[in-house]
């Protein structure tokens, strides 16, 4: 998601005065908070989490198609170990991971891309590494380096890197990815304006391009579903889209082309799994499709 140029979310007392029963709670350290992921599934979240767990495929587990490792300009961060803890707690077996809008990205994101690659090496089999680039910068060398290294895909973020999806430098990257048979995930959520019209010419010229629409293109979800229906290499990824938007998607689009994502550290696994599952169920998606949405659809590309 990435809040551009925003300071880390603070926790000033926006709720006003805490009840006296809460005042006995001591403030947790940053390290304790990072590791206390039970707070995402306990208390009032407990029945929600139980409902989710009943729907998770026991054999394949979950495939998370959208997560970050590294640090962001806005203060968010996630380590490979932190990701693994969250994955284990939520029955996630594999995650696509890529860099955040890293303050150390410099020209070509090579440093943050190296962090992602190290995560893949330190946790073999758990992470599907994508590399990130800035279309405004000279990207050819880093593109070639990452392809040769074995990265599994490319991440582009039009809001953070301030480009349009039909910018000629971005279009060239899409075409390079298509030629390299490399899937591309694009941020198509918070802060976006033009998605469908901007992407369509590139998709029509490059039907082999495999494209993951991050956050389900929620600002234009219905039009995206209509227009991209006839383009089988376009899939929708659900992270941090709200249940109402996902309902629109599930009610109108082939579930074999919808995949789950969390957007960690902006999203979390319990609430994003809930949005995906409750929307699918409300839209009448059959239970037989749930393992595909949570896992199998992405495993077709990343076994």
């Amino acid at each position, binding site marked *: 998601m990435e809040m551009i140029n925003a300071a880390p979310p603070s*926790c000033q007392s926006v709720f006003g005065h805490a009840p006296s029963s*809460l005042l006995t709670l001591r403030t*947790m350290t940053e390290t304790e908070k990072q590791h206390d992921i039970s*707070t995402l599934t306990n208390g009032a979240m407990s029945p929600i989490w139980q409902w989710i767990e009943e729907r998770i495929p026991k054999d394949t587990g979950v495939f998370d198609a959208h997560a970050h490792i590294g640090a962001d300009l806005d203060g968010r961060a996630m380590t490979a170990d932190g990701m693994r803890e969250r994955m284990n707690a939520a029955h996630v077996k594999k995650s696509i991971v890529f860099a955040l809008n890293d303050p150390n990205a410099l020209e070509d994101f090579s440093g943050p891309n190296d962090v992602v690659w190290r995560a893949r090496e330190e946790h073999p089999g758990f992470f599907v590494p994508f590399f990130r680039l800035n279309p405004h910068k000279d990207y050819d060398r880093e593109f070639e380096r990452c392809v040769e290294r074995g990265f599994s895909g490319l991440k582009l973020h039009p809001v953070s890197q301030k480009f349009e999806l039909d910018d000629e430098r971005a279009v060239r990257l899409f075409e390079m990815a298509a030629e390299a048979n490399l899937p591309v995930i694009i941020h198509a959520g918070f802060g976006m304006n033009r998605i469908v019209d901007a992407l369509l010419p590139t998709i029509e010229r490059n039907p082999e391009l495999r494209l993951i629409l991050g956050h389900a293109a929620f600002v234009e979800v219905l039009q995206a579903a209509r227009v991209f229906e006839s383009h089988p290499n376009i899939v929708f990824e659900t992270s941090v889209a709200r249940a*109402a938007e996902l*309902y629109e998607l599930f009610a109108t689009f082939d579930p074999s082309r919808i995949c789950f994502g969390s957007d960690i550290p902006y999203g*979390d696994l*319990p*609430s994003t799994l809930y949005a995906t599952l409750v929307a699918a169920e409300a839209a009448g998606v059959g239970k037989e499709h749930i393992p595909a949405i949570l896992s199998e659809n992405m495993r077709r590309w990343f076994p």
Partner: protein
Amino acid sequence: MSGDRSMSAARTAHLLGISANLNMATISLWGQSPRAAAILGMFEASIRWEGPGGHDEDLLVRLRDLFEEAKKYHAREDFPAMMARLRVAYDLVSIRIIEISGE
């Protein structure tokens, strides 16, 4: 409008108000708006009392529980735990509105 339709419309209107307040509150928290406290207070007020006909009390109970915990985690500076509860609360309201629309 018939009695049933009138009741469904009133419930929808009530829940749309809750949804709007919660949506504004969530965005305010993300953006660190100085008005976040006031908007969260609006959300809290909107779930405090019974809705039309009492039909959605089960939902309101869940919203109150999630919000109380969100407050607790906010006080502990645990942003993810707070936001998870607010996201789920928002989706619970949305899905109920969608369900009512099909009645």
